[in-house]
C-alpha cells in the first residue's frame, strides 16, 4: 500500500510514536500498509507486540520478511475480509486510508477484525493545503504530500472533520484522537475540531466498534 505513499519515508514519520503510545504492550497487531516495516519494528521492539503486516508492494514485503517481520503481500481493499472477527487487538492503518479504493469498507473491516483500529491520516484541511487550493487555485503539493494530482496514489483525501464524520457513519467510537503539528508535536483534540482541522498536519485516531 505504501509503495508510493507520500509518507513512505518512514524515518521521520511523526505519527509512529503516537501510534506506538496507543498500543498496549504484548498485544496482537496487524499493520495494514506496513511499507518497509518501520512501524512494526518499533511496535515489536518497544511494545513487545505480536506484530503482522499486510503490504501491497511485493518489494517492500520481501524486504520486511528478510528483516524477520511477518508480512504478507495484500491489498487493504480486498484482502482484509479473509481475516476472522476479532483476530487482533489493534489493526493499524497509518497514512494509507487516502490511498484505498473504498475507505469506508476498509475501516469497517478493520473494526471487524480488530478489537481496536488505529488510523492516522494526513489532514487535507491544513491551512497550507487550503492556501494551495483557495488562493493559488492549484492542487496542493507539499512536503507531506509530494505528488502531482495526476500521478498521486492518494485518491481519497479527507480532513480531520471528514474522518470524524466517517467514524460516525460506521458507528466507530473514537477512544482517543491526537493531532500532530508540522513539528511532530502532539496536540490533544478537543470537542471543537475547527482549530486542529486548520493547524494539524496529521491526526491519529484510536477507534473501536
Amino acid at each position: 500500500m505504501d509503495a508510493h505513499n507520500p509518507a513512505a519515508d518512514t524515518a521521520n514519520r511523526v505519527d509512529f510514536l503516537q501510534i506506538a503510545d496507543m498500543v498496549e504492550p504484548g498485544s496482537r497487531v496487524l499493520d495494514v500498509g506496513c511499507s518497509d516495516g518501520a512501524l512494526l519494528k518499533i511496535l515489536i521492539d518497544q511494545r513487545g507486540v505480536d506484530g503482522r503486516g499486510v503490504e501491497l508492494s511485493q518489494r517492500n514485503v520481501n524486504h520486511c520478511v528478510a528483516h524477520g517481520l511477518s508480512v504478507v503481500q495484500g491489498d487493504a481493499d480486498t484482502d482484509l475480509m479473509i481475516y476472522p472477527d476479532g483476530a487482533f487487538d489493534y489493526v493499524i492503518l497509518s497514512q494509507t486510508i487516502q490511498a484505498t479504493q473504498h475507505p469506508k469498507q476498509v475501516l469497517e473491516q478493520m473494526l471487524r477484525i480488530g478489537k481496536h483500529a488505529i488510523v492516522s491520516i494526513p489532514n487535507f484541511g491544513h491551512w497550507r493545503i487550503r492556501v494551495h487550493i483557495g488562493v493559488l487555485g492549484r492542487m496542493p503539493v507539499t512536503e507531506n504530500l509530494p505528488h502531482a494530482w495526476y500521478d498521486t496514489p492518494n485518491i481519497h483525501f479527507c480532513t480531520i472533520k471528514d474522518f470524524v464524520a466517517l467514524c460516525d457513519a460506521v458507528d466507530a467510537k473514537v477512544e482517543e484522537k491526537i493531532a500532530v503539528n508540522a513539528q511532530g508535536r502532539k496536540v490533544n483534540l478537543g470537542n471543537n475540531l475547527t482549530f486542529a482541522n486548520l493547524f494539524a498536519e496529521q491526526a491519529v485516531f484510536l477507534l473501536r466498534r
Partner: protein
Amino acid sequence: MTKSMEKPRAKKRSKLTESRDLGCSYARFGPDQPLKLDCGQDLSPLQVAYQTYGTLNEDKSNAVMVCHALTGDQFVANTHPITGKDGWWGLMVGPGRPVDTDRFFVICANVLGGCLGTTGPSSIDPDTGKPYGLTLPVITVSDMVRSQVMLLDHLEIPKLLCVTGGSMGGMQVLEWVAKYPDRVASAIPIATAAKHSAQNIAFHEVGRQAILADPEWHGGDYTVAGTSPSKGLAVARMAAHITYLSETALHLKFGRNLQDRDSLTFGFDADFQIESYLRYQGSTFVDRFDANAYLYLTRAMDYFDLAADYGGTLAAAFRGIQTRVCVISFTSDWLFPTSENREIVRALNAVAANVSFVEIETDKGHDSFLLDVPELFATVTGFLNSAAVQHGLKG
C-alpha cells in the same frame, strides 16, 4: 548440460538396488512400531535413511528438518554417494548459508517410498524375501511425514525450530504444520500447493505411463527379472523436467540452437540442444532413481489434498496453530504458481496465523528453489533468524 547421451546404462542400475552403505544414518522400526498408513495398512519393518549436518544443542532447540522434493534425497549438502555431485541444496544449507549448519542441526530423511535407503518399493518384503515392487501399499504425503515424526521421536527431539522444503517437500511442510503444529516452531513451504492440480496430475500420469509402457518394467518386478525400465523412467524425467523450467529460461538457454552440428539432419537424432539436454537429464536420472519409487512418489503427490482431511476447508487445517509460517513462491513457476501458494497464505490468514508471504521475481521456473536466487536466501535467512530468536536460540 548439452552433452550427448549415447552411453550404455545397464551396468549402473545395480547401484540402486544393491544393499550397500550410502554413508548416512538409519533409523529402524521393528514389528512393535509399525507405520500406520493412510490406506489402512501397517508397514513394518520400517527403515528411515537420513543425513544430519551440524550439532544438536543441549536444549535441542536448533533442529531444522529439510523435506526433499520428488527426486531429491537426504544428501542435502554433501557429496551424493551415487552421482558424486554436490548436495542438491548446498546453496541453502551449510556453514554460513541461510540454513547455517554452524548454528542449526539439520536433518533430512529420504522420503518414505523413495529409493535411497528408506523403505520403498525396492526394499525387500520380509514375507517374500523379494523386493516389494507394486505390493508395497500406496503411500501418501501424510505417511511420509508420519515416518519423519517417528524419526524425530527416535532422535528424541521434542520440537523442530523449523521445517522447510520445496515442491513435494513443501507439501510435507504443510502436512507437518497442519498435523503436528506443536512440534514445529516455524515452517517455510516453498513453491508448493495444498493440493495437486489437475494439470500436475496430468503430467505425472504421462510419466507413469511411460514407465508402465516400458517392456522392461515387468509389472514392477524388474529387479527379479534382472532388467530395468530405464527408457520409460528417462522419458518420465524428460517430461517432468520441462515442467520445472520456464519458457523464458528454455528460450534464453537453448533457443533453437543446434547440438554439435551446423544444419538440420532431416532425421530424429537430437538436432536441437534442448533435445540433447533433455535426453541427458533423462539418462542420468535413471542412474540414481528407481522407476517404482517414481510411481509411488508421484502418486503420493497426486493424492495430496490437505483440505480434504479437514472437511474441504483448508483454513480448518491450520486452526489454532502457533507455528510461524513463511510461504515463498516464484513468478515464473507454472507448476506450483503463486496463486496456489497464495491459497495457503489465505487459509493461514483466515485463522489469523502468523504468516509471511514472499513472491520472488525470477525467470528460472519451478526449479528456482534449488538455484542461486539471492532473494530466496535473504528471505530464508531473515525469517529463520527471527524464528530462532523467538524460539529462544541465541544469535
